[in-house]
């Protein structure tokens, strides 16, 4: 048999299909790589923008002031009574220190410009210091106080890219503004005072501890995430304490004890559906049940935790049931075979083996709950709360809500604080997910 032109031998035909199959596989791999590259580049863009915007918030420029703590201003009776000390007029101490640094500022407007250099929170820094140590009264102390956020932003180069701390310190005559006076946020007079303060060597950028220790504030330089972080902690604590035991018990009952009938089928379908219900619905439910019916306080982490419990329960139940299902029947049979009761079999053998899977599901549910704002809107946790909450009943807010509120604030400096708060939230989420992965890696058993 001779091979005619146009027809191929079986070997050639096989080679051709083989080539096609290889090509298809390579194409498929290429699609996969493209998908990963796209996803990664989006993630990288997100991280780069957020870190680029937010890194500045961890630094705050401060000015050193020499404050004379005059007893006649804050403690005329010389009794060091803490109540009186708390109410005293510390602003005048700050003003005196500033006016003595700028003796040439005598007109009302100039003095106002000088006062504006320093954060209105400076007086509270000094108050706290004096109240911690009343022996300072009558002495001259040197304190670092935060600069006003608008000047802090100038020094970070966020107001005018051509001008930052170094330029301000080193440019001797003209500051190279890219906009004429009147169109920029800082006037020549204000810039002059700022430059003078820098030249005197009193200004430096240092770690912004206020960002981590303060509650919310309308002065960006005093605003911190601690209040929201504590609120998130209380909320998650309530969520965990309720949703973990309830979720695990429900999963054990449904998986191990419940008879397989129409009713349990309906329950199962409903649990799966609940996992997909928009979270705002849980907020409305929380408003109707916990606030209006039970009369719990508004804005409390307790109520937030209850609402988020409703939201995370389906996730935990589904994950726990999957974990229970993955324990091989031979374990149960062996336990029952040596005479263990059903409960003993579950508690002593099945549950320990299913626990890593359950914990992973729980942590992922918690991470979801940490990022929620919508259900909290209805129960009043989207609020301006300055005081750091001391219990789950105190009004508070949570980290994602804090981010939302700052993103909506007109002050320029809140932009970088928004990004910085996002970084902290992402940090927590990554940490929680890492713990979930670690638990799975360490305790998971494969059969």
């Amino acid at each position, binding site marked *: 048999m001779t091979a005619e032109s146009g027809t191929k031998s079986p070997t050639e035909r096989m080679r051709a299909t083989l080539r096609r199959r290889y090509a298809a596989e390579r194409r498929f791999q290429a699609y996969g790589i493209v998908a990963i590259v796209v996803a990664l580049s989006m993630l990288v863009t997100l991280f780069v923008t957020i870190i680029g915007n937010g890194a500045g918030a961890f630094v705050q420029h401060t000015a050193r002031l020499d404050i004379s703590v005059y007893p006649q201003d804050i403690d005329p009776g010389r009794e060091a009574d803490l109540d009186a000390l*708390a*109410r005293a007029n510390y602003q005048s101490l700050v003003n005196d220190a500033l006016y003595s640094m700028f003796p040439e500022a005598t007109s009302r407007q100039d003095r*106002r410009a000088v006062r504006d250099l320093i954060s*209105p929170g400076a007086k*509270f820094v000094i108050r706290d210091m004096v109240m911690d140590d009343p022996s300072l009264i009558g002495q001259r102390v040197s304190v670092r106080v935060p600069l006003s956020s608008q000047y802090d932003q100038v020094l970070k180069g966020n*107001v*005018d890219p051509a001008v930052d701390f170094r330029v301000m310190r080193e440019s001797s005559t003209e500051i190279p503004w890219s*906009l004429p006076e009147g*169109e*920029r*946020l800082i006037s020549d007079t204000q810039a002059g005072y700022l430059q003078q303060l820098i030249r005197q060597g009193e200004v430096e950028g240092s770690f912004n501890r206020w960002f981590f220790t303060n509650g919310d*504030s*309308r*002065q960006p330089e005093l605003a911190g995430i601690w209040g929201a972080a504590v609120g998130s902690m209380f909320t998650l604590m*309530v969520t*965990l*304490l*309720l949703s*973990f*035991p309830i979720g*695990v018990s429900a999963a054990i009952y449904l998986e191990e004890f419940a008879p397989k009938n129409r009713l349990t089928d309906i329950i199962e379908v409903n649990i799966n559906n609940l996992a997909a219900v928009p979270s705002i619905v849980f907020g409305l439910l929380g408003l109707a049940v916990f*606030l209006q019916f*039970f*009369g*719990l*306080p*508004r*804005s409390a982490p*307790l109520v937030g935790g209850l609402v988020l419990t409703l939201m995370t329960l389906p996730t935990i139940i589904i994950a726990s049931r999957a974990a229970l299902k993955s324990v091989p029947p031979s374990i149960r049979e062996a336990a029952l075979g040596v005479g263990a009761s059903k409960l003993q079999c579950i508690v002593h053998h099945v549950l320990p083996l299913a626990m890593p899977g359950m914990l992973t599901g729980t942590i992922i549910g918690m991470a979801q709950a940490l990022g929620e704002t919508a259900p909290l809107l209805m129960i*009043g946790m*989207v*609020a*301006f*709360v*300055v*005081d750091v909450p001391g219990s*789950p*009943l105190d*009004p508070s807010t949570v980290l994602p809500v804090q981010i939302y*509120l700052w*993103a*909506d*604030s*007109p*002050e*320029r400096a809140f*932009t970088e604080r928004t990004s910085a708060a996002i970084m902290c939230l992402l940090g927590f989420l990554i940490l929680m997910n890492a713990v979930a992965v670690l638990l799975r890696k360490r305790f998971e058993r494969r059969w």
Partner: protein
Amino acid sequence: MIKKSILLAAVATVGVAGVAEARDQIRIVGSSTVYPFTTVVAETFGKKTGMPTPVVESTGSGGGFKLFCAGLGVEHPDFTNASRAIKSSEVETCASNGVEAVTELKVGYDGIVMANAKSAPSLELTKTQIYLALAKDVPQDGEWVANPYTKWSDIDASLPDAEIEVLGPPPTSGTRDAFLELVMEPGCESFAECEGLEKADFKARAFTLREDGRFIEAGENDNLIVQKLEANPAALGIFGFSFLDQNMDKVQGTVIEGEAPTFENIASGAYPVSRPLFVYVKTAHMGVIPGMEAFLQEYTDEAAWGPEGYLSDKGLIPMPDAERAEYRDAALNKVDNIN
């Protein structure tokens, strides 16, 4: 461990029964426009007096009145912020729930500005021109036609030859309501076709903005509008004065009816698009919730709402001296001035 957590959870749930009885913290709800100002006062009040800082929720004016008018007692808020005056229907709701004595405290003015990027030429518009640029249907020779204008120069030859593109707040926003009332309504009234219309018809004509993509709802976040203007010099944006004030190196205000949106022009009343902002006080709570009088004193202090006060630094336009005195007296003497 599981037993322990169940126990803890049970204790936590039982422990809270009946906690709603006492409250030593002022609660404020309401408008997101007044929120930036009330929060500053709340923070200053807290730091000055050492009392718990009032909790301020941003619920919108309407949502605020709903919560405020729901009744008396610690579970209901003590103040509500509003970027418009209380409606008679809301006064009725309040009264039917036992909230009879309410004091209206006008706190100042807020300008609504139109602005575009610094890199574009600044605009000078009249209300009529804005109406023609943004209304869904416009009158033409006695007829109502779907808005035909695509460029500003189509409306008036003196305006730049640029596409009409305006970013503004969504219908849920108080800024949008005020803009419609202060700009679109008089803009419509300048045409003969608008006269003699039934009230409902008039509203439909004057208050319906075009939906062909030339007016873009940009969401409640004014910072976002400013960012979009910077990226797109062809667009105009509508937002509150404080955002113009904080971003005057990025955007410039549009001159409306010959007046530029500056602090001085809004304060003097020359700039035509400004609205009063209010705080409503539940007088029955005064004396029950500690600190309400002191909070009102702080709000009405010259250091706060005066021309040189810290609220004006945040972009609130102060009222004239006489008006401030009038509202301060009303608030401190618990005058019921809404009925």
